[in-house]
């Protein structure tokens, strides 16, 4: 059987420097009109000239997808994931190469594309469904299912501009979830909505892929979602395919590549006038600040002081995506000497087994004087890290927002009646 998607050497270049493809003004175009023949003539003589200022967002990408396969696409920001999806969705045109899609395609690069704030929920279901490629009859048939999935029955005739963002997203995803294409292209849309709804979306996606034999191309930064949904993945790096194969392998390649990026380590210069936090760093179980649940983690904090401090106290919180502190660690001078004379001190906090549940977290660090209650320095939103459940299996999978913390527990079962 022929693959449902065949991609051969697909590439997309954006011209930078000359900026021909950015907001052109008429004057530029007139100037271009004069210059173009000269340039074309030059290019004919020296062909390299043309590609000098081209930025290849995607290049030489070839792969095939079989019918019913669910493929994950992972990579850092700017690796070309979105460009690839845009090419396959026919939103923009490739510069070179060729892709053949053998089936009805629906793409979902954003939830609620075409939603109009002034229109009611009911009206937007029809509008959005139509934009996504459903016929009126199809929308009418699925209308009740869509409404039930979105849980907004009572607000159906309210303009969506009065919706909370959660309701808006639920309605938008509900429409999209009822598309019936043969090929579904999805970008990071699961990153929205509350935890419970995300879980239902993931469930729906799984159902779509497995039950109905649909081909899905799925982009996400959420390794957990990728590993739950897909068997095979592609890793994009600088516009090229860096790895392809079973999802587990590709994810570990992705996690291992590259060193820590600057913003994963907080650094500040010591001050001659005031005590400061000079460095905050995490040693996670995986590279790039990715931490496996249940594995050890270390936090390294450096503070400097130009004067002795009597009762110094250094503490930090791990905060969830909402900025709420979920765990707290502290070091207090009476327990061990620190900052009793001027200088720089390094504190290492070793956490034997990090039990935080999967999700994205950042650190908030305080440097205080316990006696006077004075705060010398505070940094927050630093050392972003992700806790993953990857490699830790359980039947039914893991879903975002189930809890914030996983504790060990021993179960005993006895028949008592």
């Amino acid at each position: 059987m022929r693959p449902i998607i065949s991609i051969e050497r697909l590439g997309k270049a954006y011209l930078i420097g000359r900026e021909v493809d950015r907001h052109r003004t008429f004057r530029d175009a007139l100037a271009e009109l004069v210059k173009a023949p000269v340039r074309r003539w030059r290019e004919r003589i020296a062909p390299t000239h043309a590609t000098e200022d081209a930025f290849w967002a995607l290049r030489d990408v070839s792969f095939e997808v079989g019918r019913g396969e669910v493929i994950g696409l992972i990579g850092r920001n700017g690796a070309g994931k979105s460009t690839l999806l845009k090419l396959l969705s026919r939103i923009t045109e490739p510069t070179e190469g060729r892709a053949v899609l053998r089936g009805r395609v629906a793409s979902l690069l954003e939830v609620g594309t075409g939603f109009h704030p002034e229109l009611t929920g009911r009206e937007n279901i029809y509008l959005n469904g139509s934009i996504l490629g459903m016929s009126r009859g199809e929308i009418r048939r699925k209308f009740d299912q869509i409404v039930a999935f979105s849980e907004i029955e009572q607000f159906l005739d309210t303009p969506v501009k009065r919706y909370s963002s959660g309701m808006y997203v639920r309605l938008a995803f509900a429409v999209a979830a009822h598309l019936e294409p043969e090929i579904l292209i999805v970008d990071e849309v699961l990153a929205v909505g509350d935890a419970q709804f995300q879980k239902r979306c993931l469930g729906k996606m799984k159902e779509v892929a497995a039950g109905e034999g649909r081909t899905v191309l799925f982009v996400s930064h959420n390794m957990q979602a990728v590993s739950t949904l897909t068997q095979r993945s592609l890793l994009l790096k600088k516009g090229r395919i860096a790895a392809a194969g079973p999802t587990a392998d590709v994810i570990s390649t992705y996690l291992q590549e590259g060193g820590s990026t600057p913003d994963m380590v907080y650094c500040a210069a010591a001050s001659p006038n005031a005590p400061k936090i000079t460095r905050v760093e995490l040693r996670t179980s995986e590279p790039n600040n990715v931490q496996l649940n249940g594995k050890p983690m270390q936090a390294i904090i450096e503070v400097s002081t130009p004067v002795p401090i009597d009762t110094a106290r250094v503490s930090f919180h791990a905060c969830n995506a909402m900025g709420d502190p979920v765990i707290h660690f502290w070091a207090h001078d009476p327990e061990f000497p620190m900052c009793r004379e001027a200088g720089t001190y390094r504190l290492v906090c070793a956490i034997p087994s990090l039990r935080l549940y999967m999700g994205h977290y950042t650190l908030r660090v305080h440097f205080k004087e316990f006696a006077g209650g004075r705060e010398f320095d505070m940094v927050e939103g630093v050392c972003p890290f992700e806790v993953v459940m990857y490699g830790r299996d359980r039947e039914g999978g893991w879903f975002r927002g189930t809890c914030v913390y996983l504790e060990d527990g021993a179960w005993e079962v006895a028949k008592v009646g």
Partner: protein
Amino acid sequence: MFSTVTRPAPAPAAHDPAGETVIQPSRGWIGVNWGELLRGRELLYFLIWRDIKVRYKQAILGAAWVVLQPLFNMVLFTLVFGRVANFSERLGPQYRDAYALFVFAAMLPWQLFSTALNSGGQSLVAQQNLLTKIYFPRLYVPASVVGGALLDLAISLVFVIFLMAWYHVPPSPWIVLLPLLLALTLACSLGAAFLFSALTITYRDWRFLIPFIGQVWMYASFVAFPPSIVGPKWRIVLALNPMYGIVTAWRKLILGGAPDAITGWDPLFLVTSIAITAVLLLLGLFYFRRSERRFADIA
């Protein structure tokens, strides 16, 4: 569109048999994919419906603005050009008092064209978020604006019938040809909407130029005053404006018995108008199709 050469193109809407979509770079001029436009027509209806629904939300007078806007223009033009400049004298004793109808008959096609030029011209820029997030035939964006304006025209037409009864002006027997004239007006408006929307999204200068062009074009189409105020030497210039021929033809049909000196009617103008409309529509379509593949990148 995007150079995807599509063999049975999978339209974004409708249950077409699973076709094969080939995505590859395109070169040069691209034809119009009529099959795809036809299959996706439901989306066009939805876009028109959305524009109409949204336009008068939170306006107390709501859809009444459809009539009120041209009505205000009519009153203004009748006062300024009919009374103050005294052009109503040029309509002769029989039509002198019906200056308002004389203006409104021309407002019918002009409103459609003006909306196509202004809102249609801005339409792609206004719909950037759609262009960069989903694929559908891009021609629908300006076309839906013109479609919405067509409804306004229908409502205004009812108002014109009322005015005709008020002034006791019977229509010309040729009024049966109105659908053909309407088709010509529509073609001219679509041509302008396609051309100027594609120009505006590529060169944002047109956002500032178009309102000015619209003003000049309105005067050059003699919407507010009789063509007899300029001498016959301008005939050649007027013939180049497709809207001039269209406006005179509308007046000819609505102001039934009025002499050609008043309506400005001359078959020559209609013939040149048809020819230039054809050129405008083709140019608009092909320029649009040619630049379409860049829309998502420059939006």
